């Protein structure tokens, strides 16, 4: 088996299932259904404590920016909040009014000492579209079309204070202990702070772009360090369509396959070869082109995969270990799927869940090539997620499971599977896996 599948613990499947089933359609029933989950376990016995749930939900909906993002990620990871919901939230919350022309000028004067009209041959003062923490302008210099990304002021400073806001909320929502919260918050805070550092994004974008240049079907922007700074990034303008528009044009199967394969290879290669990955597999970060090539944008969120973590998940996916109960249990403990103070029943529950999850997620790899348009497969994932959601042991658990390093990997693979499903792409799944892993794939 391959290790990237191991990076997708149980909760990930649950999220994927919700996502697929609802197809972004969020209705009142949905809210009612899931608000029951928000109720704290001890209150759960009272027939309906929806008021309480609604209160928590309301608090969540009032969060902004990074606080929202954290609440969203943790909720998704816990299966408390359906992905479709939290996606909607994020979209809504990031619809900040565009920066005014004068503020754009001020930002340039702060970092470059001159107005944008002096830096570029042409600069469109109206933003073309909003990015998550900034906006994108079109410009031209020396005959080259450029995309100029400008960060909203004060974003970096607000991250830390936002996290301070969301912390007590997370404690209330999940009933976690401080020690457990720290485990996740360290990881999230460092990613979020990194995301506001455009100089880091620039260097990582350049690094990943050059490392992945040998991959087929991918296009990376060319960066211009001299025209970039702490809150400004200048890159070559890339043409392409966002996923929705691309699919609306009914691209032929061969084109969808090529686009999906490019994305799949991109992530396989990063996880297994670079051990550094673009950790934001959100449809908005890719542009799809008529020939099936994919342009990759936005390297704000990049996750370095520590060797120890990689090896751990790698070992968990080894077929031999799956067959060996004791070794599997050791692996689960190391990966924080099973905790030291778990009762024997809990151990059985969680190892069982994780094993089922692995079997399901590993399916594409077992077959060597896989059709992500297979709704039966995603339905099976969904059904599994439903079963898990009804499992009181999971619903009432007060301990976060899974390693913090898995948080972003889960999110990324969740995003990737979702995009591939929407593309209905057929993928060769074994490319760029390390040799030993490929050899261990059971014949389909």
């Amino acid at each position: 088996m391959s290790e990237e599948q191991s990076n997708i613990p149980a909760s990930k499947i649950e999220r994927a299932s919700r996502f697929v089933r609802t197809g972004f359609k969020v209705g009142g029933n949905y809210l009612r259904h899931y608000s029951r989950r928000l109720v704290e376990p001890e209150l759960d016995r009272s027939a309906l404590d929806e008021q309480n749930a609604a209160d928590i939900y309301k608090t969540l909906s009032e969060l902004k920016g990074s606080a929202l993002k954290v609440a969203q990620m943790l909720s998704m990871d816990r299966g408390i909040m359906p992905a479709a919901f939290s996606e909607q939230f994020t979209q809504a919350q990031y619809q900040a009014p565009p920066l005014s022309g004068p503020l754009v000028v001020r930002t340039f004067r702060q970092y470059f000492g001159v107005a944008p009209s002096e830096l570029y041959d042409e600069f469109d003062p109206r933003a073309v579209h909003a990015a998550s923490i900034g906006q994108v302008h079109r410009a031209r210099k020396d005959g080259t079309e450029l995309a100029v990304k400008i960060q909203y002021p004060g974003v970096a400073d607000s991250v830390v204070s936002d996290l301070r806001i969301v912390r007590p909320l997370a404690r209330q929502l999940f009933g976690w202990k401080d020690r457990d919260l720290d485990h996740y918050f360290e990881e999230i805070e460092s990613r979020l702070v990194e995301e506001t550092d455009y100089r880091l994004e620039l260097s990582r974008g350049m690094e990943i772009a050059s490392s992945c240049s040998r991959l087929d079907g991918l296009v990376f922007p060319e960066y211009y360090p001299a025209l970039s700074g702490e809150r400004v990034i200048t890159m070559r303008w890339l043409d392409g369509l966002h996923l929705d528009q691309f699919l609306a044009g009914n691209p032929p199967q061969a084109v969808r396959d090529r686009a999906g394969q490019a994305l799949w290879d991109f992530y396989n290669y990063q996880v297994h070869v670079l051990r550094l990955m673009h950790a934001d597999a959100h449809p908005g970060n890719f542009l799809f082109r008529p020939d099936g090539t994919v342009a990759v944008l936005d390297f704000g969120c990049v996750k370095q995969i520590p060797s120890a973590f990689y090896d751990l998940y790698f070992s968990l996916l080894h077929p031999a270990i799956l067959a060996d109960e004791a070794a599997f249990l050791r692996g689960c403990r190391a990966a924080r799927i099973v905790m030291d103070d778990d009762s024997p029943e809990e151990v059985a529950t969680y190892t069982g869940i994780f094993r089922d999850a692995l079997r399901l997620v590993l399916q594409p790899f077992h077959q060597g090539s896989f059709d992500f348009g297979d709704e039966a497969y995603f339905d099976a994932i969904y059904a599994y997620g439903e079963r898990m959601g009804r499992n009181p042991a999971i619903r009432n658990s007060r301990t976060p499971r899974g390693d913090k390093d898995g948080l972003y990997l889960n999110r990324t693979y969740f995003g990737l599977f979702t995009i591939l499903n929407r593309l209905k792409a057929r993928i060769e799944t074994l490319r760029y896996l390390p040799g030993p892993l490929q050899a261990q794939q059971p014949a389909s």
Partner: protein
Amino acid sequence: MNQADPIRHAYAQWVAAHGKRPASIQEFAAASGIDAADISSRYASLRVIEQTVFLDLFLETLRRLRSSPEYASYETAQEQILALMYTWLEVLGQQRAFLLVLHQEEGLPYQPEGYTALTAGPFRQWVQPLLQDGIDRGEIAARMALSQWYQDALWANALVMLRFWLNDRSRNSERTDAAVEKLVRFTFDLLRPNALDSGLDLIRFLIQKP
């Protein structure tokens, strides 16, 4: 700031360097080596020097705006006011240390005799035609007597911005930038024709006898 006037220049430097204002013209004169009589003949008090330094910064802001091609390209009063505010912040940055001392010693610059006193008039003169153009274009609602207060509203914006900036410890004063953006947007949401105007129109209609 006006380099041509050595007294103002020396005063701002002295205050910034010492972290306090001199107790009297004599103390400042002795410390700076400038003749006290010379200072007194040109400035009635130290306060007047401070007011003039602040005014210099504003006049420098206007000079920059006049020579800015970006400023010439703005077609709405809202953009023009924002450009004024951001350029002003840029110029104020030259004297941040000096202004911080004044801010710490007297808090809000709202008093009629505060260091901003001499600047209020020129500020109003600058924004008045911008507002009038906005009214002519329909960007801003003409509300008869109420319109006279528009320039005061913008001056209040400027004072709020100043205070926010002096208290701002964020990197590159980014929070002030965000605050100005929101403040001016809010102000113009009030100035442009809105529910208030349709409400007044409705009331006028209802109380009219047919």
